[in-house]
């Protein structure tokens, strides 16, 4: 046979991926410049879900802006609420009672598990493993049911409140949660059997989307993205809030900063979250769940219904908002995606003069070109999965 020698004309191709694409996990749009299968340039476009949460927050009282934070990272709204109330409490200069702190830590870690489990399910589904996705939703469903029993809502919970939590936990809730906690490690083992040593999975993730420790810090990455590169930075350890300084847990670290190490880190985080929940249940002592600072926190509901003074007090707080001293506060919390920060500027009225949300997904989306450029198109999917972004939080 004669060798066919023909000059084939090649040219670069620009394709638009998203905003409607199942693997972009929301409304993320990437414009990819391709040379064959290689990505030369990747330009992310965000903002399709921009609702102006910062602007809305500046026109509401501190209490009324709480439900807005549910809509940031809607997969783990509990963690956003906890971050928000902690920031507001810091600004007010008040502290929640011990029991409320433990409850908040507990529910925040439940939120972490439910978020990581969605990340695991969708990430491996994108790469081609369908099975863990189905099992992952079974566990998430149990946490959602627990949330529903706790506060009546599954997704947009608004359960933590400024000065404590909305209602105390019941014994049935704790029993059910304890049962879940005892069972959950074996479930993670199941996922790990399916995925961790899987040859296809390893080929798709080892050495993909590598970012070194120095680069990761310079890019401002946080959470699993940063710890996958081996940087030991966890806000729960560095600046403990709630009851994180009273529970024991380890911070899982990666080494190579690739998709596989980030996977291992997040799997480790789920085990640690489980450990924290267990300790919280065991250490939960009796006591009030709402702080009593009449200037800043609402009076209990049953007293409002009996006492006119309390009713007036509640009315004034709700309509005008608490009077906050002038000043500014930045407070960060470790949500499943990374560092969620709230920055408030108070001008002495009941509403924040400036409310800023530092969203981890926003920073992580900006690092996509760094991860994707020079790789293959198929690895773009792996990279979107590994950065674990939620566009509601990215666009705010």
């Amino acid at each position, binding site marked *: 046979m004669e060798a066919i020698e023909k000059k084939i004309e090649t040219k670069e191709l620009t394709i638009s991926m998203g905003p409607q694409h199942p693997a972009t996990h929301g409304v993320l749009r990437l414009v990819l410049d391709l040379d064959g299968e290689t990505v030369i340039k990747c330009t992310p476009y*965000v*903002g399709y879900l*921009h609702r*102006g949460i*910062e*602007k*809305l927050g500046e*026109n509401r009282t501190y209490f009324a802006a709480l439900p807005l934070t549910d809509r940031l990272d809607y997969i783990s709204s509990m963690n956003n609420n906890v971050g928000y109330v902690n920031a507001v409490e*810091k*600004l007010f*200069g008040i502290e929640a009672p011990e029991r409320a702190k433990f409850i908040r830590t507990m529910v925040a870690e439940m939120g972490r598990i439910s978020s990581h489990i969605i990340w695991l399910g969708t990430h491996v589904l994108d790469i081609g493993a369908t099975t863990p996705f189905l099992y992952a939703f079974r566990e998430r469903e149990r946490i959602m049911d627990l949330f529903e029993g706790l506060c009546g809502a599954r997704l947009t919970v608004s359960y933590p409140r400024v000065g404590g939590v909305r209602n105390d936990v019941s014994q049935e809730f704790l029993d059910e949660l304890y049962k879940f906690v005892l069972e959950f490690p074996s479930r993670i083992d199941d996922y790990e059997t399916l995925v961790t040593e899987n040859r296809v999975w390893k080929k798709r993730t080892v050495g993909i989307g590598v970012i070194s420790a120095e*680069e990761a*810090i*310079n*890019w*401002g*990455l946080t959470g699993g993205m940063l710890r996958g590169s081996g*940087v030991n*930075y966890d806000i729960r350890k*560095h600046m403990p809030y709630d009851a994180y300084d009273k529970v024991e847990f380890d911070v899982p670290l990666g080494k190579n900063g690739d998709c596989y190490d980030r996977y291992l880190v997040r799997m480790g985080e789920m085990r640690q979250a489980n450990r924290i929940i267990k300790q919280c249940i065991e250490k939960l002592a009796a006591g009030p769940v709402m702080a009593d600072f009449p200037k800043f926190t609402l009076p209990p509901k049953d007293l409002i219904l009996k006492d006119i003074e309390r009713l007036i007090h509640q009315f004034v707080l709700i309509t005008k908002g608490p009077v906050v001293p002038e*000043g*500014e*506060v*930045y407070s*960060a919390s470790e949500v499943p995606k990374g*560092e969620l*920060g709230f*920055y408030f*500027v108070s001008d002495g009225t009941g509403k924040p*003069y*400036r409310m*800023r949300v*530092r969203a981890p997904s*926003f*920073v992580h*989306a*900006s*690092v996509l070109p760094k991860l994707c450029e020079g790789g293959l198109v198929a690895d773009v999917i792996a990279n979107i999965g590994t950065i674990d972004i939620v566009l509601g939080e990215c*666009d*705010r």
Partner: protein
Amino acid sequence: MEPLQIAEKIKEKFPDEVLEIKEFREQVSVLLKKGRILDICKYLHDDPELCFDYLVDLCGADYAESKQKLEVIYHLYSISNEHAIRLKAEVPAINPEIDSVTSVWTGVNWHERECYDMFGIIFKGHPDLRRILMPEDWDGYPLRKDYPVEGQDEEWRGFKAVLDRSKRFKEFEWKG
């Protein structure tokens, strides 16, 4: 290092730049002139004792009504030395301009774009200063205090274009 010590150190190094040092709830903010912000950031990043390797956040704030000024706020943290500081740089409300710090922290890129998008502050030396959350042809800067919460009276022209297009496609609708 204690945050107040850091603030004093900045004042020692750049005595003419620091306008005010304030402490509230154990957090220290340093109000600066905008002129040498890049030098100050480089110094904070490179000095081994300070070593602010991680820029947590950059955002803007609008004080046009009270002070005729906008502010750019930098939250810095040092992962190796575990200390934090807040810098605030004043820019005039008319023709707001400031040097970009992307050469020091790469990750600040999108934060500066957002700040430009929401407040109209121009970052000189930024590699790709475009709007990020709002559409390219949006009028006004949403997070400024003179921008109404409900939005402007007139509909965005891009939305009109979408409506027109949907009307044109109406003839293809399934009549069943």
